[in-house]
């Protein structure tokens, strides 16, 4: 029995998207709990190997002529239909109660948060040139962005980052998947001056360091 076939079958019958780590757990507990002989050889499969097999499986489906394909959204793997088949599925499952589309200000603000996270409200307003109070509220309520701690600058303003829900909403596998990410992340943003205290602060402008130097989208450690 091939690992790839097992992965395909498990995903095929899963009710929710699965991460490679979760799949590893399934392989492991099947190997240790199953009374049958089957599966013992998949007891200790590395996550890398699972990931590799999933990538290969995705390729298989991309090249096939099927109405569905395998995708990784927010780190978890699942089958989704090809868009051409949407009309029949809409008939089958009924029109899902999708939230209304985002407004133009919403999309712009979200784009800034996505590429610049963790980002303060002031930084967003500097880029957009307008106040973003109402828009931020909407994005927070829809669970597309969330608080991501405070920036170590004057006033210690709240910073914001995108959520898992954001990735799911746009069908992105992870933040590295964002289109044209490199270009948009590297634009320097002028930050408020770092907070100068009597104490030697341990991380002066951690936010800036994280964004501009490594280009990684991780919130600075609190």
């Amino acid at each position, binding site marked *: 029995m091939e690992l790839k076939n097992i992965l395909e079958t498990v995903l095929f019958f899963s*009710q929710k998207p699965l991460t490679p780590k979760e799949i590893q757990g399934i392989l492991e507990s099947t190997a240790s709990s199953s009374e049958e002989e089957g599966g013992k050889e998949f007891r200790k499969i590395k996550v890398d190997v699972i990931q590799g097999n999933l990538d290969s499986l995705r390729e298989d489906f991309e090249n096939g002529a099927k109405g569905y394909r395998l995708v990784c959204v927010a780190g978890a793997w699942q089958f989704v239909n090809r868009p051409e088949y949407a009309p029949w599925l809409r008939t089958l499952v009924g029109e899902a109660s999708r939230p209304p589309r985002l407004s133009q200000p919403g999309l712009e603000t979200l784009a800034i948060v*996505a590429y610049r996270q963790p980002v303060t409200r002031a930084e967003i307003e500097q*880029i957009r040139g307008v106040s973003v109070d109402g828009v931020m509220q909407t994005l927070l309520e829809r669970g597309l962005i969330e608080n991501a701690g405070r920036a170590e600058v004057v006033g210690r303003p709240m910073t914001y980052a995108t959520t898992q829900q954001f990735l799911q909403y746009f*069908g992105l596998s992870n933040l590295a998947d964002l289109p044209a990410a490199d270009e948009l992340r590297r634009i320097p943003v002028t930050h408020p001056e770092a907070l100068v205290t009597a104490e030697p602060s341990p991380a002066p402008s951690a936010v800036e360091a994280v964004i501009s130097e490594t280009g990684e989208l991780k919130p600075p450690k609190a």
Partner: protein
Amino acid sequence: MGEYKVQFEVFEGPLDLLLYLVKKQEVDIYDVNLTKLATDFLDCIEAMSQLDLEVAGDFLVMASTLVYIKSRELLPSDQQVAVEAEPDDEDPKWELIRQLVEYKKFKDAAATFQSLEVAQEGVFPHSAAKIKFDQEPAAARATVSVFDLVSAVAAILKRVQARDQSSDIFADRWSVSEKIELLRQEITVRRTMRFSELFAEAASRVEIVVTFLATLELIRLKVLACAQSEAFGEIELSLAPDPSLEAGASLAAAHAAGESPSVTGLQETSAAGDSAQASGVPDHEENPAPRLS
């Protein structure tokens, strides 16, 4: 006038309006005629106020910046040189262009997000129907309850108690035959246990030795079967199949009792496999019919 009215509703803010005006000049942002841009912008503001529209503060701030830039552009060149000696980032003209370029990039990114959003509306994530097994899956095995915790407590207490008594009575506390009986009882109830568990509760070295001898004896008597799933792995002990019963019959009994077939030593694995195959085909659970619109 009417033209402006419509547009003001779609402009997000002064930068958005400026981008629109740059686009009308049909040049790259870097090559834009700032004097003309400022004039156009002020005309729009003027139109807004004539229409009695409330001009947002952001627009007014931008208007004053533009007026300042425009006035500098209009200075005679000999005076301009002195001013232009300032570093670029303090030059309001370049600051404005930098801001426009940056804003434009995010506006483009927003357009990309919008197309992703629209595309996602036609994407249905697959979710399989609930699988129903004839035989309940090993859910219980995966759940730990407070009772597990309580029995762990009981095990500790038992051991502590045994330890406390062990100093004077351990010597004659266990005989091999007693231990054989206890083990036989335990394995009958539990059907499998790990080798290490045999000794987990031992209170003394003597008891460990006695337990080990009892285990060997039970294996010799074919009451116990032992298996090791991998090299250096945990040794598993299980109740050996009763030769007086057909393997199938004992499995059938287990089914009747509502249990899943237990591991009963290596000898029976093929039988267990067969039975799982027979009952392993899931049915899709009956769900309400899909809405056909």
